[in-house]
Structures are given as structure tokens and as C-alpha cells.
């Protein structure tokens, strides 16, 4: 019995060893690499939750059964899916299992001398031999040394090698890939990302409640939020008057790093974020907020302020909702805003230029129950009119007022709003470092030729020269020809 048990145990260990050897084999690495490439494809063809949640929702509306199945296979979340993770985790285990032993080996080899000269040099590439005149070995030695070959000499034979950088570079490249993965993971675990819409004049304090949306890494908490504040001073958008294409966005803010610090004026542009340590603030999108005042029948102000509208096209035709929960009955304005008014046969009122040259606010007025206290979250740009009744329809220019049965609305002015994205990624510096090392390693590896050259003077007075290039790298032939010419020139 005991002996049998022992046998199975050894069997288990050797099975493990067998698996490990399989996993770290070159063939497995190749297969895993190809799989990684192929399995990345579906995520680029099927909409992903992280990028395009609307499209994903459409799938669920159009064909719920199919969508549910796709969801079970993580097809809407490919790059976080168990199967995609499995591939890259296996690949990196294989990478570590492969590279660490090679690093140790290479470290040893890089301090050792090249192996002794083989017996039969004529089997090597570019073998040449001729009658020696005496000083060749010395000349060869100095020539090879000048070219920084590593030399092992014994019994009238030189065994030399050059190009260790190839393996060094290759190892650094593979190790750097691990560093990149570490950087990416740190970012995912300790990072955060949030968005906030702010009208010009408003203040942003970096606490969770100021955000419209906010997501954390698994190991991030509220206290890790950097304690800065921003005041939105000014936003300028420039457009090309021929093509209407945007040319420049400039956002001016007053920033304080932490409570009590002196405020400083700063500028944020599309390609130049504002940094607070590992936290960056990016300018993402912009639009207009009409400023309106709504009064009730008695003439008391029931709502006043800037209300962000959501752009629908490149000319900033925008939709929005003005909700007045504090009036009795509740009022709602289903509205659209056009910075430069124009008409389209199909769409009706549209904007024809993205700057506010001829701004107009168009709306229908509803009274009844806005449904705000029903607990279901509502879009700030839309009104649920199912429990309301339409009581009017109108449009206003800046400064105009429209009175209706339940009160009045004034379009006072407008301010631009900006969408700020706040991102903290403490891992990106490691990823960048890894990327730089990876490229340097690649360059070292792919542009270095590793080769051996042997020179031997035989008993019978002939001299032999031969070489061998790893991976059949080109260029050795020329090098040997140079060496031979050098040696033969010395002779004459």
C-alpha cells in the first residue's frame, strides 16, 4: 500500500512538472500570443459596456435572449472577461517561467568566456584556411579585441564571441512587459475616474458628491481623492467659419491644490490637462446652459439658474429640461436650445453654427407631476410627461419673457458649460517606464547580431578561420572577410 501511495505522489509531482514545462514552452507561448490577438477581436466588433453603454442597451432591447446569452459570455465586457483574463494571465505566467531562468542563465553566461574552439572548424559557416606565416594569431587577437569580442584562448586557438546585448535586450524587453502589466493593474486597483458638468462661474470641489458620475478602483477610497478645488472662470471656443469645425477650446480656471493654498489661474486645453499629483483634470466636452427665471402666478421667483443642455450635433443644437418642482402645480419645460437659429425641413429648428450668434430657446410647457419623488433616477435632460398636461408652446430670445396661465418664464442669458473628466492613475508611470524599457530592449535585441568567430593555427602550419551566427543573422560573412584580409595583409 505504502509503495503504491508513493508512486502516485511522485506521479502527481511529475505531472505538475510536466504541466509547468508545457506552459513555459515556446510553442505554448506562441499559441497564447496568437490567442490573445484573436480573442481581442470580438471586443472591437461588439459594443462594449465601458465605451458604448447605449449601444449595449440597444442589443438588450432588440433581442433580449441573444443579448442575455452574449452577456453570459462576457461579450459586452471582453477585456475584463474571465476568458480574456485567463489568456493573458497564462501568458504572463509562461513569460515569467520562461524569462526568469533565462535571466539567471544569461547572467552566468555573460561573465563566462566563450566555449573552447570546436574540433572540426570546417563544418562551420564561412570556413577558410591558408598557410600561416606566424603572427596571425596575435594580429587576430588584437583585431578581435579592438572589435570588443570576448576571447577565450587555448592551445593556439581563439574562441571569440560578440553580441551578448541581443539576449540582454531580449530579456529586458520581456521583463518590461511584466512591468507594463503591473502598471496597468495598479491603475485599475488604485485609480479613479469621474465626470462633472460645470457652467462657467461654478465651483468644483473634489469630493464624491460634486461628480455626475464616479468610479473607483477596488482599492481606492474617498479619502484618496486629492483635495483640490476649481472655479470655472471662462471658456472660449473658436470655430472655423467655413466648415464650422472646432479650432480651439480654452478653459480658464482658478485652482487651489488644497484648502488654504493660494489660488492660481490655470489654463486647460484638449491636449493639455491640469495635474494635481497623480490626478489629472481633462476638458472633454462643452455646450450651453441657458439662464432662466421662472415665476408663478403671483410673480414670485420659483426657479432661477443656469441649466445645462445636451448637444445633439456638431453645431450644438441641444436638448434640455427645465424642471420646476417648487411651484404649485409643478411645471416642466421640454426644451431645445439653438446657439444660431436656423430651420431644417425635417428636424425643424436647428442650429447652423456652434457659436451663440442668434440664440433661441424653444419649449413646450407642461404642468402636473414631474415624478421626481418616485425614487427612480431621471435624466436631467428629459422630463417624464406621462403624468403631465401640455399647456403651451413658445420660443424666446435673450431678454424676452413669455407669460402663460400658471406664470412666466424669462430667458435671461446663457453661459457655456464644460464637461471635466478627473482621472487618477498612480500606475501609469510604471507602464510608461515599462514601455520605454521594452523599446530599448527590442532595439538592442533586434539590431544586435550574436556571433562567434574562431581562429586556429594548426600543428601543420595552416591557419583556419570560421564563424557562426545565431539565427542566421546576416553580416558575418563580411566581417570574416575583413578579418581574413587583415590577417593576410599583415603577412605581405
Amino acid at each position: 500500500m505504502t509503495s503504491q501511495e508513493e508512486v502516485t505522489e511522485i506521479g502527481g509531482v511529475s505531472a505538475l512538472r510536466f504541466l509547468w514545462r508545457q506552459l513555459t514552452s515556446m510553442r505554448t507561448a506562441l499559441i497564447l500570443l496568437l490567442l490573445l490577438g484573436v480573442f481581442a477581436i470580438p471586443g472591437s466588433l461588439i459594443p462594449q459596456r465601458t465605451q458604448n453603454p447605449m449601444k449595449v442597451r440597444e442589443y438588450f432591447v432588440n433581442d433580449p435572449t441573444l443579448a442575455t446569452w452574449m452577456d453570459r459570455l462576457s461579450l459586452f465586457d471582453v477585456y475584463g472577461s474571465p476568458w480574456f483574463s485567463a489568456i493573458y494571465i497564462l501568458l504572463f505566467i509562461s513569460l515569467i517561467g520562461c524569462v526568469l531562468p533565462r535571466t539567471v542563465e544569461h547572467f552566468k553566461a555573460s561573465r563566462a568566456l566563450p566555449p573552447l574552439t570546436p574540433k572540426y572548424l570546417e563544418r562551420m559557416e564561412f570556413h577558410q584556411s591558408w598557410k600561416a606565416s606566424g603572427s596571425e594569431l596575435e594580429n587576430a587577437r588584437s583585431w578581435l579585441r579592438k572589435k570588443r569580442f570576448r576571447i577565450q584562448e587555448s592551445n593556439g586557438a581563439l574562441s571569440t564571441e560578440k553580441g551578448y546585448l541581443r539576449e540582454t535586450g531580449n530579456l529586458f524587453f520581456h521583463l518590461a512587459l511584466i512591468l507594463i502589466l503591473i502598471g496597468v493593474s495598479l491603475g485599475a486597483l488604485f485609480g479613479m475616474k469621474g465626470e462633472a458638468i460645470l457652467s462657467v462661474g461654478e465651483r468644483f470641489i473634489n469630493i464624491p458628491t460634486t461628480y455626475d458620475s464616479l468610479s473607483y478602483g477596488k482599492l481606492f477610497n474617498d479619502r484618496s481623492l486629492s483635495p483640490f478645488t476649481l472655479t470655472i472662470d471662462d471658456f472660449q471656443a473658436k470655430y472655423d467659419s467655413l466648415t464650422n469645425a472646432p479650432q480651439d477650446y480654452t478653459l480658464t480656471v482658478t485652482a487651489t491644490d488644497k484648502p488654504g493654498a493660494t489660488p492660481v489661474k490655470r489654463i486647460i486645453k484638449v491636449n493639455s490637462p491640469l495635474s494635481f499629483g497623480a490626478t489629472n483634470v481633462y476638458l472633454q466636452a462643452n455646450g450651453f446652459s441657458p439662464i432662466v427665471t421662472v415665476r408663478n402666478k403671483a410673480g414670485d421667483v420659483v426657479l432661477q439658474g443656469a441649466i445645462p443642455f445636451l448637444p445633439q450635433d456638431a453645431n450644438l443644437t441641444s436638448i434640455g429640461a427645465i424642471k420646476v418642482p417648487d411651484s404649485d402645480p409643478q411645471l416642466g419645460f421640454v426644451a431645445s436650445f439653438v446657439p444660431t437659429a436656423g430651420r431644417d425641413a425635417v428636424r425643424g429648428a436647428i442650429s447652423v453654427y456652434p457659436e451663440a450668434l442668434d440664440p433661441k430657446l424653444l419649449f413646450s410647457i407642461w404642468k402636473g407631476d414631474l415624478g421626481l419623488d418616485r425614487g427612480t433616477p431621471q435624466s436631467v435632460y428629459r422630463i417624464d410627461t406621462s403624468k403631465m398636461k401640455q399647456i403651451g408652446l413658445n420660443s424666446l430670445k435673450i431678454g424676452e419673457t413669455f407669460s402663460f396661465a400658471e406664470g412666466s418664464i424669462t430667458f435671461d442669458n446663457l453661459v457655456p458649460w464644460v464637461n471635466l473628466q478627473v482621472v487618477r492613475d498612480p500606475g501609469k508611470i510604471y507602464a510608461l517606464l515599462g514601455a520605454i524599457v521594452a523599446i530599448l530592449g527590442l532595439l538592442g535585441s533586434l539590431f544586435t547580431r550574436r556571433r562567434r568567430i574562431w581562429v586556429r593555427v594548426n600543428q601543420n602550419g595552416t591557419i583556419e578561420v570560421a564563424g557562426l551566427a545565431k539565427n542566421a543573422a546576416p553580416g558575418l560573412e563580411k566581417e570574416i572577410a575583413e578579418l581574413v584580409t587583415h590577417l593576410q595583409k599583415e603577412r605581405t
Partner: protein
Amino acid sequence: MTHSSWAYLSNYLIYSAMAVYTLAFFAHAYETAWAVRAPEGPAVEGNLLVKTLDYSRTERVARIATAFMILGFLLLFAGVVARGISAGRVPWGNMYEFSITGALAFCGAYLVALRKYDLRWLGLLVSTSVLLTLGTAITVLYRPSAPLVPALKSTWLVIHVSAAIVSGGVFLLANTIAAAYLYLDSMEQKGERKAWAKRLPSLEVLDQLSYRLVAFVFPLWTFAVIAGAIWAEHAWGRYWGWDPKETWAFITWVAYAAYLHARVTVGWRGRKAAWLCLFAGSTFLFNYVYVNIWGTGKHTYSGL
């Protein structure tokens, strides 16, 4: 000169380049078709191939063909530069501009490689591809010259896009050679090479050459992807977001890494390696054509 006259000049230069490439195409076609019609004299011992085939009568045409390729390259280069001047920026703002610059890089890669290797036979394929690219660019993809949208205003545009375009040019050249390998290989499997194909390099040379081209630009492509990530970090607040364009750049990178692996560590050569090379190259093309035109995501600069 005003902006629009630079733009007109650019268009004229592109049209002229197309005309010159057409001439190059015909010259190469003539060379390929007529070079080996008349075996001359008895085969002498030794280098049998050269002795029995006559290339001399098309040598002049072949030289002219190469001259046309160089002239076409220069005209195209001037056209791309003029386009940049007309827009007051680097000429890489939309798909039309990517295409003319890409064709320039492809042709440039061919001419550079031609200095080192006997690749003249590839001229027929190169001129055809360049003509097709320019033709599509000017008919389907053309957009008036205009300034850049804010997201594209960055030094990283210059760095990232130039690296990507040069890599693309060399990858496509490597692909063309891999395709030629497969074609000639299947011809040899059936028997001897046809007369016109006899002067093309041996399979071994083609195999090595496409490998060397890939190994040469792989670091540059790696750099292009990383530069793109750095730029994305500046513009969008994340360096990697699995946007379709990024995903396909990654797939191309992984595919070429697999190709290098297959060659260096597993020892793939010949057909298998050539197919893998073609696969990797097609992911690059797919990214360019499909993702630019039909794809979604943040990289919507085709201008279409």
C-alpha cells in the same frame, strides 16, 4: 501663394505622380512579360539560369521603370508637403491625407530596400498598389484642405502618426514579399518556375527578406502604439481604453510579435511564416480601412 493655391498645387502633384506611376507600371509590366522570351545560345555549365535567359533586351525598360518609380515618389512627396502647407499643419488630419502619405511611405520603403536588395521585380506590384491607393484616395476619400480639430492639435500627432505610417509602409512591403513567396512556392510545387519568374529571387531570399523587414520595423510599430497611448492619455485621460482603433493596433502588434516568436523561437520558416505574416499585415489593413470608415469610437478622423 494662398492656402487654396497650395491645395490646388498639391492635387496637381498627386495627379502627376499617378501619371508617372502608371508609366512605371507599364514599364515594369513590359519588363516582366518580355524579359525571358528568347533563350539564347546553348546552356553552359555553371550558372545555367543566367546563361539561358536573356534579360538584356528589357534592361533599358527596367531602368526606366525604376526611374519612373523615383520620379513618382518625388512628385508624391512634393504633393504631400504642399498639402501640409495648404492646411498649415502636418498633412495627417484625415483619411485622404493618411492614404497619400501611406502610399508615399510604401513606395519609399520599396526604394530604400531596392538599394540593398534586388527587388526590381517587385515594382509591378508596388506601382499597382500605389496607384490603387492614390486612386481611391483622390476619388473616394478626398476632402478639402482644412485645419485640425482641437483633439488632433498635438506634437504627438506628428510623432505617433509618422511612426505609424512608416511602419505601415514597411509592413505592407513585407506582406507583398510574403505573398510573392506563397505564389512562387505554389508554382514551384507544381514543377519548375515559369520563365518570367525564374529571375525572381529564390524562396529562401524572399523568406528572409520579409522577416528582416518585419524585425526592422517592429520596434517602430511598438513605438507608434506607445506614442498613441501617451497622446490618448493627454487628450482623453486614459492611455488605453480598448477603443476599436487601439484594439486593432494591439492585435497587429501581438500578431507581429507572434510572427517574430514563431521564427526565432519555434523555427517557423517558409509557408507557415508567410501566412502568419499575411495575417498580421491584414490586421493592419483592416484597422485602417474598416475601423476608420465603419468603426465607432474616439478615433473618427477619416473626415468621411
